[in-house]
């Protein structure tokens, strides 16, 4: 376990619902590990940010992508697919954050090489707990490829 506390964890949240964005941000504010949350409100924007295309300055580092499935324009699955097929991006862990419990969505996400699938709880407190857990696992325990290099 290599703990590099110098740099903030760069999180890319792909979520179109501003309410959800707010909540997620709020949840991550309480995180133990320092992090910086960037938001893409649709799939296209997400890819633009990741690749530094279309006028978006490339994200220098994205440690982890939190991806919602239901997005306008390019939906979450397509983003996932695109990312995993892009040699420059495929190493980035993508955790699908979705309110959908449908097995179809879950299986398909893993099929498309998502690193994890988290079902957003309906209860906010629970949501906070979930975020804490994500943070615990992905930021503290796991060695992120972007931070090893």
């Amino acid at each position: 376990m290599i703990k590099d506390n110098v740099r903030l964890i760069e999180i890319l949240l792909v979520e179109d619902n501003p309410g959800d964005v707010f909540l997620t941000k709020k949840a991550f504010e309480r995180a133990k590990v320092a992090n910086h949350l960037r938001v893409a409100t649709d799939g296209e924007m997400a890819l633009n940010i990741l690749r530094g295309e279309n006028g978006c300055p490339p994200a220098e580092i994205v440690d982890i992508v939190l991806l919602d499935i239901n997005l306008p324009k390019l939906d979450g699955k397509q983003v996932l697919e695109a990312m995993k097929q892009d040699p420059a991006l495929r190493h980035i862990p993508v955790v699908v954050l979705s309110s959908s419990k449908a097995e179809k969505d879950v299986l398909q996400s893993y099929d498309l090489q998502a690193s994890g699938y988290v079902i957003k709880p309906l209860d906010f407190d629970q949501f906070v707990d979930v975020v804490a857990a994500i943070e615990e696992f992905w930021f503290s325990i796991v060695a992120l490829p972007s931070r090893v290099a």
Partner: protein
Amino acid sequence: MFLRPQGPVDLRGVMTGSPDPGAPSAGNRLFEEAQSLAKEHDRILHAGRLHWFHWSIIGASLVLTIVAWYLVQTQVDERVGNQFDQEARQVVELVSERMRKYEDALWGGLAAIHAQGDEIDHREWKRFSETLKIEKKYPGINGIGVIYHLKPGEVAAFLAKQRIERPGFSIFPSHGHNEFFPITYTEPVDVNEAAIGLDMAHETNRYTAARKARDTGETQATGPITLVQDAGGTPGFQLYVPFYSDGPHETVEARRRNFIGIVYGAFIFKNLMHGTLDSDRRNVGIRITDGDDVLYNENYAEAMNRYGRPRFAKTISIREFGRTWDFEILSKESFDNISSNQLPWLILIGGGIIDALLLALFIFLARSNRQAVEFADKMNEQFQARTIRLSAIIENARSGLITMDEDGLIESINPACERIFGYTAAEAIGRNIRLFIPAPYGDDPDQNQGFAVRAEGRTKSGETILLELAFSEIPVAGGRLLSAIVRDITEQDKAETEIIRKNLELERFAYVASHDLQEPLRMVSSFTELLQAEYGDSLDDQARQYMEWTVQSSRRMQNLIADLLEYSMASSDEGGFSDFDSGEQIAAVLDNLGNAMKESGAKIKVGNLPVIYVNPLRFGRLLQNLVGNAIKYRAHDRVPEITINAQEGDREWVFSVCDNGLGIRPEYFDQIFVIFKRLHNKEEYSGTGIGLSICRKIVENFGGRIWVESEPDRGSKFFFSVPKRQKDRDAA
């Protein structure tokens, strides 16, 4: 007695709709067979009557019998007749013979007189008669005696002579003739004493006979007379044998000149016949007449039978000694009885019996024949009724029924087929099944026997339709017959497809709705909670209360939506069906419920659970709900005990989840499976009431049923059935 023939079954209408005589089809063959059957039927029926040859046989037999009877009867009659004849003749002969014997006796007397030199006295005559032993040797002769002829001038001297020995002698009675023929001697004298001296000339018959004897020189018999010796006055007669002195007596004059007297015998007919005939002649009646006078009459009246005529009668006339005696012999009934012979009647009766038997035999045979035909007809009727019924079923069936040979050549189609494919029976017969049902099924119906499959069909107008099709073999004698049962399921298929589509749509709708509903709801509840958390302090109690209710309601709504989502997905088959060990699945479920189990201290017992063929995820969900309920609705005063079992049936497995919890009142047994129906309010027990309706949906989806048995406060037993696969069913 005679049967009206029913006629054979008309098979034409049964198999083929409208037979075409030209078509070389099974229909025509059947038709010809039916015709020949009809002919045979009539022939046998015809044989069931009695015909001319039967009657002629019987008639001939009868005739023979009658002829035989008649012949025998005639023979018998003849024989009897002959017998009678013989007897009659015998009677007459006997009498004649006797008469001759008596005549001989008289001639003996004559000889005796001549031996005495023509002079004989009564003593000598007595000696003669005793020597003769009349009573013994000549029974029937009443008396034998001598009559002397006297001219008037000789009378006095004669009298004097006679009175020497017999003082009482006199000639009587007086008469007007001038010659006298007195009985001079007669023996035996004791019975004939009254006759001594009786003058033959006094009575016509005697006188005539005496003179005749004298004139002819031959024995003469008198006509019927009554002897004076006969107290009864019964008919009698006398025999006169004339005797003469020496000298010629060839002529009448000579005879008259030399006539001396007569040796006579007196007879009473009664005695004569009695002596002559034995008692065994009592079988005939005899009447002897001389002219109009009845000389003798024995059993004559009795011989007349009830018809006034005797069976046999014979009249024999004999001429004896100048008299003609008519013997009328009649057979008495006793004669008939003796001489009657049973034989002709036996023959008649026997023959009649044989004839009757013969007739009976013919009738019996004819009747057997007829009965057989009647029976056949009755069977026929039954068969016909059944066939008509069967054909009605076939004709009226909604499913198409096609019969064909093993190469697929169509033999018949029923009206439903005509409707389905648009061909008439006449058009279809003889064509190959491929016409209706293209490859692959139509190509080889023999190989494709079995359960119904979905196959394409082709109508006359070229339209393709969807059929439910099943081929099978019909066992018939002589050849193989295949059948196809088809149902046009085009519409049904469309409808099914439509339904499936609609269902899918509905589910998709429910899914999407719930899914998309969740998001805003999440927002509502999250932000309200945040409000509570961050601004709660600066708000008053009322505001806090408002928020509390808001949060609760949105939570509740979230639960409802989540459950609805689950409900809508409960019949999806994602993951599909597979064979899996339900026991393992249950283990996984119990794992999921681990917390709840620990909390409640529930004891779970699991029996032997089979491998089943369903959607594993759904099955898991089902069990989770059931066991979860069992834990949730436990009784608080005891440790919850839950048992999970499975029972094997012929066609299905029946699982059971039994608990010792709160139990359910019987009136709610059905309602609990209704979506959102709860039996407790939400303060007591959490839950939206969707669990059991999800269970039901899942169970019904794999073709089973779910139900409950329960006793309030004792516990509940939930049962659900899982159908076996076909192969498992067959194996069982």
